[in-house]
């Protein structure tokens, strides 16, 4: 028995080192006192962590990525919550079809979505790249929104809203007064999942970049092609901390993992 425990800790230790190790390395490589990316770093300092905040293009692309993640997810929820509700509560004609259409963005590779929107929305219809990015990110998050909200609707008994209707609420009132408060956790979880997915998204945004418009991950990619300093490592570590903090807080407050 003792031996088996040792064996399983060895397996887990090796797996977790492989999964988490690179992240630890990035944190330290970013904290180098030297001028080039290396591990172990040449002395420790916070200068690259501070430099990140002074790079102008990082600031602009951070704002863009933040905006896309927040507004894209909100839009996906505005579209997705009613859809999930309808698919969950009513037997609709063609609901399988609708399910497939709404889930499609998860199946189609992101790079193709980006290219298709660039070629058939931006170029001929004169949409700006920012708007196309917004659409692409909304479409990308939509399947997650529908799925997560659906699973929390599943846990909600429908007789509660029936009761509300019997007591004189309209259907719409019943939705806002009874259903929405009860699936709040699911909606927030969908928001966080959508936010993290959108913020870290690369392939969709690859083609959707234009003069002055670049999402943060794409900007980091081009920065690291030009400059060989540890600031991209520092920025990566900061962003990772941000994502992890958000998810950790969500788990503590909402039991995030129940919904995902």
């Amino acid at each position, binding site marked *: 028995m003792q031996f088996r425990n040792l064996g*399983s800790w060895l*397996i*887990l230790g090796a*797996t*977790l080192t*492989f*999964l*988490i190790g*690179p*992240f630890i*390395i*990035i944190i330290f*490589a970013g904290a180098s006192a030297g001028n080039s*990316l290396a*591990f172990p770093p040449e002395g420790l300092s916070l200068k690259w962590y501070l430099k990140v905040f002074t790079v102008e293009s990082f600031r602009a692309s951070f704002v863009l990525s933040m905006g896309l993640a927040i507004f894209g997810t909100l839009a996906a929820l505005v*579209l*997705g919550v*009613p*859809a999930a509700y*309808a*698919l969950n509560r009513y037997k609709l004609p063609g*609901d399988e079809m*609708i399910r497939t*259409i*709404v889930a*499609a*963005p998860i*199946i*189609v*590779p*992101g*790079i*193709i*979505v980006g*290219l*298709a*929107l660039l*070629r*058939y*929305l931006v170029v001929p219809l004169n949409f700006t790249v920012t708007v196309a990015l917004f*659409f692409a990110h909304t*479409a990308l998050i*939509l399947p997650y929104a529908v799925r997560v909200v659906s699973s929390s609707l599943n846990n909600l008994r429908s007789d509660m809203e029936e009761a509300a209707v019997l007591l004189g609420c309209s259907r719409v009132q019943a939705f806002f007064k009874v259903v929405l408060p009860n699936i709040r956790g699911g909606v927030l979880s969908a928001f966080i999942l959508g936010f993290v997915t959108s*913020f*870290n998204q*690369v*392939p969709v945004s*690859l*083609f959707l970049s234009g003069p002055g418009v670049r999402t943060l*991950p794409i900007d980091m990619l081009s920065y*690291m092609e030009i400059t060989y300093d540890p600031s991209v*490592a520092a920025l*990566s570590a900061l*962003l*990772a901390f941000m*994502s*992890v903090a958000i*998810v950790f807080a969500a*788990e503590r407050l909402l039991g995030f*993992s129940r919904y995902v």
Partner: protein
Amino acid sequence: MLALPAAVFACLLFLVPVMILLSEAFRMDGSWSLQGYVDFFAKPLNRTVFLRTLKLGVLVAGTAAIIGYAAAFCIVNLPARTRGGVFGLVVLPLMISPVARTYAWIVILGRTGIVNNAIVGLGLSDTPVRLLFTETAVFLGLLQLFLPLMIISLVSAMENIPRDAIPAARVLGASWVQVFFRIILPLTKEGLVVGGTLVFTGALTAYITPAILGGSKVLMLETLLYQRVNVANDFVSASVIAMILIVMSFSANLVLKRLASART
């Protein structure tokens, strides 16, 4: 009615543009034909890239399944208190930007990186081994990126195995190999199908990892697509690659489901 806005949005701003892109390779010189596909596969480079993508996808998914089973089995058998923490550490990398996760491999696999320092230090080789811009580098990067998806799928599948099934089989004299093939595998195959599809599809459609760790010498379909469009405005090749990627993802799912139902 309530589902309509979502469906219309997904149709107009997503499905329609993607469909037009996919149809592009069939519309050569104004008429419908398969010439785009014939031309694409006539080029040796394109065939190599296609086969390499397929190979790496299968290798990554296969390796992830092996590691995934071992890790998931250990996780499920942990005491409840530690289990949540370990599971959290497995999920953690999924929250970190793939740019950051891939970037780390440059430091690890470089000539002066820790892997090479270890190889030279241990006397396994006199000179550092070239690891960056090789298939090995891309393989490791992809495995690290997608292994968590496999572990998560398998852990939730294994939670459904009755608690005493394995000890009972052991008491009755079954070897661990028999336990795996007779009990664990049949009861977790749905998790394997989900995990396998996710990992395989993820490996096919990752861009950053092959771009940074593979470069122009280890092109994969995704990086080839980017290059064809960016250098030559070659939308026919882009359309063909797009179709291949979608067909490959779907077939992977079908094949895995087939295999799963054949086993019983």
